[in-house]
């Protein structure tokens, strides 16, 4: 049985004439322990898709099934890492994580909760900054806090909505490795939404492009048959990597061209030549 399943999911915003269908006919199956990446242009409805899966939004039609049951609300089983970190600015790093821990493990003793917080902050390497406010941290550190917060609830599935989108390339690479490290330890199911094809290939088992919205649908999937752990420097010479990367980019570029062609409108120019005043 599929772990997460989306069946003919459509999402429309607004009603009546102003309704815009953002997602249409999304079908997706993710198996347990799989790492799937969805790649798409900005504005193609990626965040909407994420919110449908984590339960913040309800589909207009179709079904989202998690372990065979329809998703009706958010759940601690699905941890979310938001695009813009969404840390609470008035709480310190530790308090931000503690908030999640207290909700996910309300029955644990205070001490156990505290240890848990410390452990997850340690895991993302922020122990020295545990008492700092998000404002005092760099973007990468903030995203680490968000990762710690999502993982501290011990979710069965982790959903990442462009988690590294706002970071510079170097920090991005580091965090990719960290997330992969954490993931490989207990092989949770993971869904990564990204706009970076390389990131998807480096991290995921499967890549599914999202055709741009409105009426966004999922394109054909690309399997990444590269042994883990993957090495970033070696990856460049890997023929499978090159092939997959080219195929995905070609596909995405193709969509882009299609979109341009649709938008193209030919204007007939009148056949005029300037009148000469010299002669």
């Amino acid at each position, binding site marked *: 049985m599929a772990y997460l399943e989306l069946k003919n999911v459509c999402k429309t915003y607004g009603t009546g004439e102003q309704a815009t269908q953002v997602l249409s006919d999304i079908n997706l199956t993710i198996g347990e322990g799989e790492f799937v990446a969805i790649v798409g242009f900005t504005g193609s409805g990626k965040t909407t898709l994420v919110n449908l899966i984590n339960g913040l939004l309800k589909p207009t039609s179709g079904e989202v099934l998690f372990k065979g049951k329809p998703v009706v609300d958010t759940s601690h089983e699905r941890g979310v890492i*938001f695009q813009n970190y969404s840390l*609470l600015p*008035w709480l310190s790093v530790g308090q931000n994580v503690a*908030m*999640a821990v207290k*909700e*996910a493990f309300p029955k644990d003793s205070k001490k156990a909760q505290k240890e848990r917080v410390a452990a997850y902050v340690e895991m993302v390497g922020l122990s020295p900054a545990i008492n700092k406010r998000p*404002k005092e941290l760099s973007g990468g550190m903030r995203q680490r806090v968000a990762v710690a917060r999502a993982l501290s609830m011990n979710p069965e599935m982790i959903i990442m909505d462009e988690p590294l989108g706002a970071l510079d390339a170097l920090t991005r690479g580091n965090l990719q490795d960290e997330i992969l490290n954490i993931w490989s330890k207990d092989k949770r199911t993971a869904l990564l939404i990204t706009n970076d094809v390389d990131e998807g290939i480096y991290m995921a088992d499967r890549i599914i492009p999202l055709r741009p919205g409105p009426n966004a649908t999922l394109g054909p999937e690309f399997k990444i048959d590269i042994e883990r752990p993957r090495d970033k420097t070696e990856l460049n010479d890997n023929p499978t990597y090159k092939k997959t990367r080219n195929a995905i980019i070609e596909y995405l570029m193709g969509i882009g061209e299609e979109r341009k062609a649709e938008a193209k409108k030919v204007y007939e120019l009148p056949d005029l030549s300037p009148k000469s005043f010299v002669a």
Partner: protein
Amino acid sequence: MKQSVTVNEPKDLKAGVALKAFFSKLKIKPPKFEVKTILRKVVVPIVSILLFIGLWHMGSKALFNVEANYKIEKALTDQGQAAADATKACIASGDLSCQPNTLPSPSQVWASFNTLLADHKTISADKLAFKEKTAALNEKRIAAGKEPITYTGRPSFVDQIGTSLKTVFAGFLLALVIAVPIGIIIGLSETLRSSFNWLIQIFKPVSPVVWLLLVFMIVKTMTKDSNSDSAFIISFISVGLCAMWATLVNTAMGVATVDKDYINVAKVLKLGALQKVFKVILPSSLPLIFTGLRITLSVAWMVLIAIELLAQSPGLGSFVWEEFQNGANDSNSKIIVAMFLIGIIGFLLDRIMLVVQNAVSFNKNASA
């Protein structure tokens, strides 16, 4: 406000050396002063204050002359040359009985300020003596189940400031207790917001005087049987009702416009309804709530004077009004003293609120 100290040439001056030693003892780097900063932060304000006092002095002198000439001319037309000369001589001699009544000069105001302070000293001494004298008697009266004798003399100027502050804080607390919870509830529900909107829009611009009358109608009846201080009750309730709107509107807006990301976090973490309010919505709207409270306090202080004046509640407002009615020689300058004090106290209250606001809210950007 940064504290600034003027040290022009610390090397040469004894004070400068002492100051340097002081800073090195504390192991703090002595603040560096640039000429430009000193100019802007110290010299320019002082010059502008002096300029203001100078203009005020000249203005009051001009008004004095106008008033004096009018008086002399009136004596001339009514009573003839001799009376006019007498009036002129009288004014020139500085005799209190014939001084023109107009805008007082800065020196007169300063003198009045000192008079008021001296007056306060006399009254407090009087009060203390009275307390000592009646202490033994009061003990007996209390033992016998009778009410103790209290001092019923005239309140001093400082006492009146105290009363005013008491009233304004009572009113402020009332506004806080009413406006913040209602604001939160309104902010949480769009339905409530639209159903309360008309009420807020209509009552917000109502003048303090009208509020006072409304409160008076109700409190007068309610306190008929008790002998509590109804003037105080009326004035602080009116102050609270006038001033609470800023807090109400700001709280509602703060709660209604909480960043959607935070709400999503609350949902994903599955916080309960109460926890969502207390752990996410309230903290994130605190900056706006405190902005509202700051406005409320300054409005409260502003309307207080008018309300005290009408409610006959002892305080700065009634002080001003009594002095105006009094019409003594130094009444005008006492009114100006009160005006400055009202302004300074209002300014200090605002600063206190700013400090509290900065201490409580997470974005430390609030400024004057």
